[in-house]
């Protein structure tokens, strides 16, 4: 079993786009896990919905050759995160475990971070989150309810990491590969989302990162994300056709 030393984690995710079917299981699992406010019709229509992970769908071609492509997008937890230096109150920073962290009780809602993020994965709470009283029963006590006026985003389910780490520490062993599952990776039926420790060379994510299909989103910006994508495979795509693939 692959293990890593205490404190030597660099958490990250590998998204195998070839396995993503666009089912949105990850989206709802995230909503439930992280006490995300209900995206009512009004908020959807005003483009004010909050979704820490979303599945984007793109069309290619026309009938009968039309193709729908899906790609899940969440905070990329960049090593060179454009959102971090712009925050005037240090509400967002990079921690020692590779995660871009949002400290809600420092955030004053300037939204500079959202402007700086090229992936558009930061969300502003325009309204106080409201649930009918009975529905508050299912809120996750491990996760803060964010108030009106502050930013929020994917946390890599940091509370799950803390629970597993605390348990491992108390039992005197290290966090095993696969022991920490984010809500989205746990739900994904096709295992398109894999979470793990990039510092552990034997972890699944480290091995998948070496796949020849790996790339990062908006690589040209130099953000150095901790989310690695594996490209979609099109079995009928002609590789090396003409000059295309040979140019470097």
């Amino acid at each position, binding site marked *: 079993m692959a293990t890593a030393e205490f404190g030597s984690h660099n958490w990250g995710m590998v998204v195998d786009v070839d396995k993503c079917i666009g089912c949105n299981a990850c989206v709802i699992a995230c909503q439930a896990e992280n006490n995300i406010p209900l995206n009512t019709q009004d908020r959807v229509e005003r483009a004010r919905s909050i979704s820490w992970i979303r599945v984007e*769908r793109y069309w290619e071609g026309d009938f009968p050759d039309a193709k729908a492509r899906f790609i899940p997008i969440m905070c990329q937890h960049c090593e060179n995160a454009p959102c971090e230096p712009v925050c005037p109150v240090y509400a967002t920073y990079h921690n020692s475990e590779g995660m871009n962290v949002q400290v809600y009780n420092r955030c004053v809602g300037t939204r500079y971070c959202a402007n700086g993020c090229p992936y558009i994965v930061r969300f502003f709470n325009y309204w106080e989150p409201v649930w009918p009283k009975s529905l508050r*029963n299912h809120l996750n006590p491990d996760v803060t309810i964010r108030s009106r006026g502050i930013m929020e985003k994917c946390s890599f389910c940091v509370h799950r990491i803390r629970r597993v780490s605390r348990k491992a520490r108390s039992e005197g062993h290290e966090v095993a590969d696969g022991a920490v599952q984010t809500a989205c990776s746990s739900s994904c039926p096709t295992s398109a989302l894999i979470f793990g420790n990039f510092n552990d060379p034997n972890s699944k994510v480290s091995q998948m990162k070496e796949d020849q*299909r790996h790339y990062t989103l908006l690589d040209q910006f130099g953000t150095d994300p901790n989310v690695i994508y594996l490209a979609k495979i099109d079995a009928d795509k002609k590789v090396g056709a003409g000059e295309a693939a040979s140019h470097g």
Partner: protein
Amino acid sequence: MKLNRREFLALTGKTAAGAVIFAACGLPERELIVQSPVDLPEDLVRGEDAWYATSMGDFTNGDGVLVRVMQGRAKKIEGNPDHPVNRGKATARYDSALQLLYHPDRISEPMLRYSKAGNLVPIDWDAADTRFMEALSNATGALTVVTNPLRGHLGSVASKFAAQYDGKHMAFDPTEQGVLHGAVKSVLGQDQLPTFDIANAQTVLSFGADWLGTWGSPAQFGVKYGEFRGQHNRGYLIHAEARMSITSAAADLWLSPIPGTEGDLALGIARVITSEGLVSNENNAAFNAALPGGLGSHGIVDVANRTGISVDRIENAARYFAEHTPSVAFGGGSAGAHTNGSFNLGAIYALNILVGAVDSKGGVISNPSSALDGVPASATGASFGEWEKELAQWRAGNVETVIIRGADIVHGMPNSVAIREALKNVPNVIAFGAIHDDTMDFADLVLPEQTFLESWGSDIPEPGPGYQVIGTQQPVVGLTISNDESGLISDARGFGDTLLDMSDGSYGRNMEGLVRGSLSDLHDTGSGSVSASSASLFTDGALQRGGWWDTSKVGSSSLGKVNTSQKNASYSNTGSLGAGNDFNLIPFHSTSLFDGRLAASPWAQQTPDPISSASWSTWAEINSKQADDLGIREGDVLLIRSSSGEIEALAYPHPGIRPGVIGIPMGQGHHRSGRWAEGRGSNVLSILVDQKDAATGALAWAATQVRVQRAGRRVKVPKFEGNVEARPVEPGVPVLVVGVGETAHDAQEANHHEYQKQFLGESRESGEHE
């Protein structure tokens, strides 16, 4: 540590300032964490949680789940890693179902309508029990118990209760699976739906069934699909469906046949395989034996003309299917929902005989019968033909009492059967449910029902994994107290327990006793996934794991014949429906609301449809080029008219649907169902025309033709598409796609090259003028 606001601001100000200074000095950010007196709350998780293994009853086809419970409240539903069906994985429906437990509009207490024209008024359970007994007292021989298709102990109890009163147990499924069960039985000789060894197949050929989204067991199939794609030789998926479902989107080759011609397409594929000699003579002979009349009229050109699929595509599909084995073929959903549905599905399943895929690795695997006597492993709704006869009895006043549970028949039945009038003629209508639905508007007695998180039961997955499985369901929360301490959210009881209370006791006293008794019986077999020294320990072990399964108990097939009684599809008539253009209507299940049973959940409502990205509404998918020709734009309110009625839907043109076809999701259009569902969208099921499959009498729910006309209004479609600016890999390349064996780097280079050529000009790209 308690802080007042002033102290908090002072601390955070100092921390922020210090952090900036430290960062400027290049100190590691670890210092920041240590020096910050205000911890991130998520760093300080407290409290212990418990995870209970159970099943989800009406909301999956037997998946095993784990429910996270803290301080007596259910917090999250995830897949059970131990369970052999979904192996720890989930669908978007899991957590949505959790919201029904704590729904603010849950029925809190029994309610009685003193006269048919009156209102429901709250009563206590003693009065409700008395009223229930009165309704049963004159119902011998005139009782009908209506449920959704039920497997496991609840199905057994409902049937035995009806039998005790010499009545009927009728299951209702708006998109009934009787045609599928019939085809599997006639071609493969199997009583249970088979499973498909997708994980070990090299080629999957599917028809009509959106098996990755809504059909059968999406969590089970999703796990297998991940393995199918992850094989050393990546599997190849061919899917035939008139509209782009998420299975169509996942396919390497998508075929979009004219609705109702899926059987022709299957036989066209068979024609190519046989004429090119791609399979053994033995398989050929077995296939011919299963197909009365043989491939006679199915020449490849004829098939191309009938299905609207080009000869090239049919040949490609056939060659891939026959040459890259193991391969498996299956179908369902809209492919079986035609007047020739039995022929369509029969022809599709017979393809497995042609490539030797029956009961073999990577093929179609039969499932065994139930491990428990009298506990059904398979369930399907009564046919539409049977329902028409039954409702005639209701209208004639020949049925004294109807008990309804898990089936919103007023929402689910087409207008043509006049279900409301039928219910009005039944003296005693007793409805169970957690949330008030459309059917309860016609009930004389409404009883609050416990959800799957509060009650005992069992579920046998269908399709199972190829061996015997009994999934257990147990209460994971106690009384559901409201968060504001105002009292119980619902004083509900289990449906099974209520029936058993009213029974003569000959088939059990309560559901817990029945489930525990059955587990004790399984202990006596001495086999399976749980091993224990006593029945009590065995029962605890099975409940902790979420059930029992035995990989040694498998099923078998006996090859039969395709039902060819009606080969050609017929459609409803639109002759007298006024102005507009005619379309084939394809209703489809919503990935989140399904057929409407989850419409009450706000999470289900807000979940974007994978294809349109729409939520909270009813939209109509139409081919984008055809929409242009007809002057239809996104958001146009369309009037969709059949001989059964008219609904409105918002136009959503896209390129992934066959011209002449209009796709509309099920699940909306409820008069009731709680604050988030009431009065929202339209009910496409209501306008289906009463056409039936010739062989089984099942409703041909994809055989309705509609006339479509613009209403002259346009509104914004509530959708996620466009809410976030797209950030493509290159302009015109939103998602990086590689060919087999191609690296991402090479693909990016090729895309960049193409971009330069397209936007900067061929000459500059080639360097001629540099």
